[in-house]
């Protein structure tokens, strides 16, 4: 069982950064260019991953930590988390799927990004701030941010774009106070469509950033954390 970032993952990150810097941006210039660059910087400690093994490794590292939830409180955590999300995020237009021990949050791109850009819109920033406020309290989650595109255009470009968009979201979460250790980033390009790419509607649905929140359940027996007051 690994207890920290594996050398393999660092290698991956290094490779990806290398690839990014090597790749010219082929898209037409956006209407306005923000002052800050949307390219991932190397200083934010965010981890770009390539597969499930990376997720599992990070999960294993975190479940032993103080933020993980005891097994007997896992169901409770999921329920109260869901209640909190319903209260604070149900009016935002993001899609939320409650799974057994995870929650899938989907940002449609029309909320988050200008076309072809990894630059977050103001609306998306506000939204992510609200999400971060919830995630700050509900710390027993690992957050895998993944970007997705439709199948139009150059697949390599799409892959890069999706990863950059995921990165933007993750970085904003860090900026809003989420510990970077809880965050993983992955770009899928058009690899994982959720809808039919032959229609405009379907393509719009495929352009998205997903946040898979995975519950971190501690596997050692729980200990009382509080003594009764009053």
């Amino acid at each position, binding site marked *: 069982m690994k207890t920290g970032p594996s050398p393999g993952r660092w290698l991956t990150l290094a490779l990806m950064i290398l690839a990014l810097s090597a790749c010219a941006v082929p898209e037409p210039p956006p209407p306005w260019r923000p002052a800050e660059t949307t390219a991932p910087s190397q200083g934010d400690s965010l981890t770009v991953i390539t597969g499930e093994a990376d997720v599992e490794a990070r999960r294993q590292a975190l479940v032993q930590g103080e933020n993980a939830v005891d097994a007997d409180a896992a*169901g409770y955590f999921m329920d*109260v988390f869901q*209640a909190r999300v319903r209260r604070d995020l149900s009016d935002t237009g993001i899609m939320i799927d409650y799974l057994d021990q995870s929650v899938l949050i989907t940002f449609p791109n029309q909320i988050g990004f200008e076309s072809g850009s990894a630059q977050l819109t103001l609306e998306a920033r506000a939204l992510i701030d609200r999400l971060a406020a919830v995630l700050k309290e509900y710390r027993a989650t690992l957050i895998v941010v993944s970007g997705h595109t439709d199948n139009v255009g150059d697949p390599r470009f799409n892959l890069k774009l999706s990863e950059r968009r995921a990165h933007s979201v993750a970085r904003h979460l860090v900026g809003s106070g989420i510990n970077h250790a809880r965050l993983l980033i992955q770009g899928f390009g058009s690899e994982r469509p959720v809808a039919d790419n032959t229609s405009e509607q379907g393509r719009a649905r495929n352009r998205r950033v997903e946040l898979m929140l995975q519950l971190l359940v501690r596997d050692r027996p729980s200990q*009382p954390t509080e003594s009764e007051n009053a």
Partner: protein
Amino acid sequence: MGNPRNALLVVSLAGAIGFALPAVLLLWVIWQQTLMAEEQRLIQLSEDLAAQTEHAIVDARTLLEDLNVQAFEPCTPDHLLALQNEALSRIHVRAIGYWQAANRLCGAGLVQGQRLTPARASRIYDSGVIAWWPSAATTAGDVALFLMRFGNHDVAMDPRLLITPGQLDGKQVAVWVEGLQMAAYPEASVFPTPNELPEGLSVDQANNRIVSRVSGGSLFPIEVVAVQSFDDFWDRYRVLVMGGGGIGLVLIALWLGLVWRYLSRQLSLQSSLRAAIDTGRIHAVYQPIVELRSGRCVGAEVLGRWTEKNGTAISPEIFVPLAEKAGLGTRLTLSILDSLLRHMASWPESDGEIVYHLNLTEQDLAQPRFSRRLAEMLDHYEVAAERIALEITERALLDSDLIRQRVAQLRERGHSIAIDDFGTGYSSLSYLQKFELDTLKIDKTFVDSLQTEAVTSSVIQPIIDLARALDLEIIAEGIESSEQAQWLTGRGVERGQGYWYSPALDESGFKAWYLDKAR
């Protein structure tokens, strides 16, 4: 009704049914009333419980909302004091907690050392309110608590305290909120779920109990299921049901007793009449009919007289209608006729000028039997039909060609036909033209009027004129004074009868009277 004993049996049976039906109806009505009264009580109780429950839940939600917006630094003494005050001011609130995610950081209240984190919430509302209905997972210190959390605060309620046992009056009650059982008293009891019960009160015969389901709650659905054993229910209403039912039954019994007594007397009278007819105890008596001008006896109205063995006489006004009602009319007439014919046979020297007027009942003309028997009997006693006049009431002549034919036949045989009690029956006089008749008997009431009013009575004159016009002879009935006799004689009325001449006489009396007159 051939046999009186059978008739009594039928009447008794009818009486039994007559008793049972209203009795069952009465008991059923009392039962329904009782159930309705109980249902009203249960509805009241249930609505009270539903309102209490709803109030407690709404109050809890409001409390959580307030706590969330109050700007306490979490778990500071001020915060804890506020939590404690809120908890203590609500009887059913056992604890209030402050949470972050799945960690209870601090709280106030009476749930000792418990950090209840049930695995599955009963409800997660879009508002962000989340609730756990009482279950094993919410049990602390032997109490299954109702938990509600909103934001960072939660409240633990003891649902037992939503029901005040004093209200229940011995019933077992369960309160269901949004289709889930919230509270029950006594807690250990197992209640039927509301959706397997009809709304309102129902009798659960299998378990010998009365069950009710009442829906209440204005903000969210609350159902109250109440169960009480049949014995408890019966204890409460026994006096009412038995008192009311008893009085009702006594009244029904009294009423039926009266009816039964009346019927059995009628029936026994009927059977006595039948016996009297069979044994010849009904015999003929005679009221002389005289020719008014000369005072000569020209005939007699034959009347039945029923004298019981003990000597009591029963009035014809009772037994004639009774005989007709019992279908004995023709037998009665024939029995009187028999008595008359035997009398005539025993008095052969009486000359042929005496015409005997026999009263017919309605049944005599309705069936062919009378006419046939009349002919046979006259034949047997060798009596000419001319000597027997037949008196028919207006009522018997009302309709039907058949009766008209029979009357015509009798007349053809030689019987003279008289209309009895003329003027008292029906107003339509059309029968006077349709039927072939000989004599019209003016009823006693018209003759009576001669005494009370002016002698030139305008009532009786038209009858006389009518008879004249139809070429009918007239017999005036009920003449009681010489003035009446004189007046009628003066108007040319041929014959008459009444106390002025003679009351009805028995066989020997009539014979004597006749011989005396003839002398």
